[in-house]
């Protein structure tokens, strides 16, 4: 019974993570917000809120609505902007020995490139997470992430401006996610994270208005988990680069589903709102699972799906 503790360490795009559990962008602030509940040194990585070139005020309210086992959000990517991030938020990361993934986006191709450039020499940022679920305002609002050509283009450009490991985060609102996955792999992505939110809508039947001011919003939470597991499974089959699984992870068991289909790591989003200590419980639960199953290394679980 005094066997040594199993190893939870994984490697994603060349980055060593002490365990495969990290927050999903936009659900954990810049990290500091949760430091009262979560020892940030215990996480596999920190993933920041989505950053843009200029500060963004976000959408009008109401911005969130609960749906059955899910929530819709249309925060509108409110953030302090990349420069303020570097200046005000990054210093905090210096004392932590935890990799930081900077999630970012743009409304035009050029904006994507420029944010990448400004993050290129920031030592506190370990890797980039490129959110391609945004509409391209110059190209009539076509979402970068739903078109393989546009997705590849934005990845190539970012690649040009920044040498850090590049994780591309995919949108699930597509017919065939493997087409997009392969396009971003070819364009130079080092890893893929999926999925972002499914587009949804909810109506207040008394006022006849959408429950969120933006009309539609992103659906997250346990409701979407089966769709996310399916897409991660598909993407893992389709590409060679590592995949980070996201979508409705509430418990260690949920996280293990993603790891078993082949995700190298997982991100926890909505669960942070419900239980600020959720990620710690998930890490402990994964370790306990390994012990119960007599396994020494989480890598024995990753991709262990038996068909």
């Amino acid at each position, binding site marked *: 019974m005094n066997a040594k503790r199993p190893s939870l360490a994984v490697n994603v795009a060349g980055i060593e993570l002490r365990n495969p559990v990290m927050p999903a962008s*936009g*659900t*954990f*602030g810049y990290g500091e*917000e*949760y430091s*009262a*509940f979560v020892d940030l040194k215990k996480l596999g990585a920190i993933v920041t809120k989505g950053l843009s070139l200029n500060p963004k*005020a*976000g959408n009008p*309210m*109401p*911005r*969130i*609505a*609960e749906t*059955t*086992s*899910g*929530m819709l*959000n249309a*925060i509108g990517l*409110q953030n302090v902007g990349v420069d303020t991030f570097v200046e005000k938020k990054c210093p905090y990361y210096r004392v932590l020995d935890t990799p930081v993934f900077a999630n970012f986006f743009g409304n035009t191709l050029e904006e994507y490139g420029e944010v990448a450039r400004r993050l290129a020499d920031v030592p506190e940022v370990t890797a980039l997470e490129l959110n391609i679920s945004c509409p391209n305002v110059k190209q009539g609002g076509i979402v970068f992430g739903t078109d393989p050509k546009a997705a590849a283009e934005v990845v190539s450009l970012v690649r040009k401006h920044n040498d850090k490991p590049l994780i591309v985060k995919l949108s699930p609102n597509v017919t065939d996610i493997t087409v997009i996955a392969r396009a971003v792999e070819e364009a130079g992505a080092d890893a893929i994270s999926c999925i972002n939110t499914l587009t949804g809508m909810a109506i*207040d039947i*008394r*006022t006849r*208005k959408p*429950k*969120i*001011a933006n009309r539609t919003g992103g659906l997250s*939470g*346990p409701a979407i988990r089966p769709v996310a597991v399916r897409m991660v499974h598909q993407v893992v089959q389709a590409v060679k680069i590592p995949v980070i699984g996201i979508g409705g992870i509430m418990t260690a068991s949920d996280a293990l589903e993603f790891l078993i289909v082949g995700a190298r790591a997982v991100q926890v989003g*909505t669960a*942070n*709102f*419900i*239980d*600020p*200590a959720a990620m710690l419980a998930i890490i402990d639960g994964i370790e306990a699972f390994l012990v119960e199953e007599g396994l020494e290394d989480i890598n024995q679980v990753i991709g262990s799906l038996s068909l």
Partner: protein
Amino acid sequence: MKNYQTIILSNLEISPGYWRMRILAPGFAAAAAPGQFVMLRPELALPTMLRRPFGIFRTGCLPPECAGLPPREYMEILYKIVGQGTRIMSDLHAGDRVELLGPLGRGFTINDTSCAKILVGGGIGLVPLFLLAEALIDKGHQVRLLMGGRTRDDVLAVTEFERLGVETYVSTDDGSLGEEGLVTKVLERKLSKYPCAEVYACGPMPMLAAVERICSERNVPLQVSLESHMACGVGACLGCVVKGAGHSDQRPNYLCTCKEGPVFAAGQLDWGRAVNTEGGCPEGGCR
């Protein structure tokens, strides 16, 4: 601020549709400031996934169940059944487990002036005023509570304020208890009596907007406690914003209700097409 996994001590209907829940919460009282709130969720995973925000009504202490054990500190909320989450809460029993996050947010600021302290509560909006009244009285202030409700059923816990030594004035829209009419009518009358006053208000948005108009006309300092749909309660999701003073589409000024509020000085807010008066809120405003 602490993340409790704790149990319910009691859960009782105190007026039709209104419930009072007492929750074991060691160390809570010492940490809680008037106007703060908690995020609560029954542990039994339920279809209402997100925690729900509730004001802190009061805190207290029960003798230990067995001699030698520590006393049982608790905190209490008062809640109104408005939807699925609160309905489920009313089905809970003593001993059932809940998850409680708090105290959260910024509460009322107490200015030690000699001005009259007037508390205005509308319906369940009375909740955060109790700790405030306690604190004001502790500091030697005289406190008046103007309590409004639609009917007598919406007037809660007034005797508890009276026991503190608060002068209370009750009004109901239908006259079924106290004076007939809106609480703002009473407020106007009272304000005309004091040369100098400060107002602390919590209640439905239309009431708060009226209180704001009355106070700003008279240059009376006002603090209001707001509601907003919340996911995290700690400033991470940015779901709970309200429009701050000077907000415009070009120069947006959004404030987080959970972190910068729920209590705001009236001047911090955009009262124009102000804080969310529609969408998702129960009939008659947000409280």
